[in-house]
């Protein structure tokens, strides 16, 4: 990080930066994340040799050398791991599945889609979370599908080999029950866990590919739409809309806002997370208090 002191960003500059990000990417930052934001901005100022925040902000606004993409990368944690952003999993088992299960005909499966799923941490996390935390898990057939555009990532997901960092948020007991030691610092998802998740290649902006996955009750689509341009975001949002059952839910990353991307979905605020819902045409059921 060098010897430079982090920059002083005024209230006005901070507001402009947040406004810029929201308009360009749909990412939402609040005052509560100020320290985090300032650190990332400082990193980018050093990387771009910007002497002041104003100089850096001018570079950002002009998108010199793809600076917008660079700072998005700095803001989003590119590595994934088990039980990441687990507040949404709390929401899944506290509210979302309860509401979706109530709409099911006898024998009709609940379908959950993790897209993009990268190397499988998220769909396996969903499977583990349901088994550990949803009392009704034995009453329903539940299908979990992980999809990604990167077929190498999908092959790695099917193989299910992970290092210690990917498992760092799991308790030793969970690791013991859902993984098998496969090397010095490597664990493999247990066969039963691997067999509980299906994987498929998909490009979110190709309608024929998304439609081929069927329709879902809940979609996890985290930290990918921010990388799309406005046109691709609109297409992806419409494809996701088609892939949701009426009343189904979509969970985005914690800095993302569907309201900025598309008016197709309704915002739903639950105790553990803000999610987006395909309108069902029925009155909204209140969150469990």
């Amino acid at each position, binding site marked *: 990080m060098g010897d430079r002191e982090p920059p002083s960003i005024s209230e006005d500059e901070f507001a*402009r930066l947040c*406004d*810029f990000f929201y*308009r360009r990417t749909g990412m939402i930052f609040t005052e509560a994340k100020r320290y985090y934001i300032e650190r990332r901005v400082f990193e980018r100022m050093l990387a771009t040799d910007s*002497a*002041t925040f*104003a*100089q850096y*902000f*001018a570079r950002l*606004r*002009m998108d010199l050398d793809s600076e917008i993409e660079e700072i998005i990368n700095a803001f989003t944690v590119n590595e994934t791991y088990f039980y990441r952003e687990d507040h949404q999993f709390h929401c899944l088992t506290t509210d979302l599945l309860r509401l979706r299960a109530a709409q099911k005909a006898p024998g009709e*499966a609940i379908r959950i889609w993790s897209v993009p799923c990268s190397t499988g941490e998220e769909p396996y996390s969903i*499977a583990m979370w*349901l*088994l550990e935390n949803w009392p009704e*898990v*034995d*009453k*329903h*057939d*539940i*299908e*979990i*599908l992980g999809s990604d555009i990167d077929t190498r990532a999908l092959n790695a997901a099917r193989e299910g080999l992970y290092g210690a960092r990917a498992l760092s948020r799991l308790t030793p007991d969970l690791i013991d029950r859902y993984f098998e030691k496969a090397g010095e610092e490597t664990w493999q998802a247990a066969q*039963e866990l691997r*067999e*509980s*998740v*299906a994987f*498929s290649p998909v490009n979110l902006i190709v*309608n*024929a590919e998304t*439609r*081929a*996955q*069927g329709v879902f009750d809940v979609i996890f689509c985290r930290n990918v739409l921010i990388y799309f*341009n*406005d*046109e691709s*975001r*609109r*297409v992806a949002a*419409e494809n996701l*809309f*088609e892939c949701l059952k009426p009343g189904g839910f979509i969970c985005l990353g914690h800095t993302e806002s569907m309201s900025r991307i*598309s*008016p*197709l979905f309704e915002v739903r605020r639950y105790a553990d997370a803000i999610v987006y819902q395909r309108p069902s045409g029925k009155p909204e059921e209140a969150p469990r208090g």
Partner: protein
Amino acid sequence: MPLIRRDPSGASAPKLEGDAVTQLSDANPDVRWKAARALGKQPDAVPALAAALHTETLPQVREAIFTSLVLIRTDASARAAAEFVRSEDAALRSGALDALAAMPDVVERILSSLLQDADSDVRILSCDLARTVPGDVATRLLGALLQAEAEPNVCGAAVEVLAEVGTADAIGPLTACKARFPGEAFLGFAIDDAIERVGAERLDMNG
């Protein structure tokens, strides 16, 4: 384990059959939605898509129509969307502006005429579209507007955008605009703020 693995069948929902343009006015909203989405690669469908926007009331179908205009991405499709910037329907106005913002390269070509529209509300909303084009282009177009615009509210909208995306070349037009409206205190304050911002960035960029 209650979790069951079932690979996607690959059998997607049936594709639209028949003439999508005709189906834009179908009684079934699902057919209209699919028709709107199917026309996103057909530049000759722009008049039909624009006509459908005049009658379509379902928000999701409207959204799909706007997206198809974005995907067609021609001056004609942008102008078709831009017509709804003057709509009395706030949702249509908003949909049009979002669609235009999604095709900044095309907007760059039509923005000048939008900023000279006879309707001052259209000019105000069009100022906001300048956020989507490169800063030097926004500065040139909004700077030209500030030289001649008679409505202080339109100037105010332009100043707000210049404060965010403008370059130091905006200082001259901003200064001239302030001089043209000596009685508009709010505008003078906004202009001073904008000059300070773009001026500070000029000093910084020059080291």
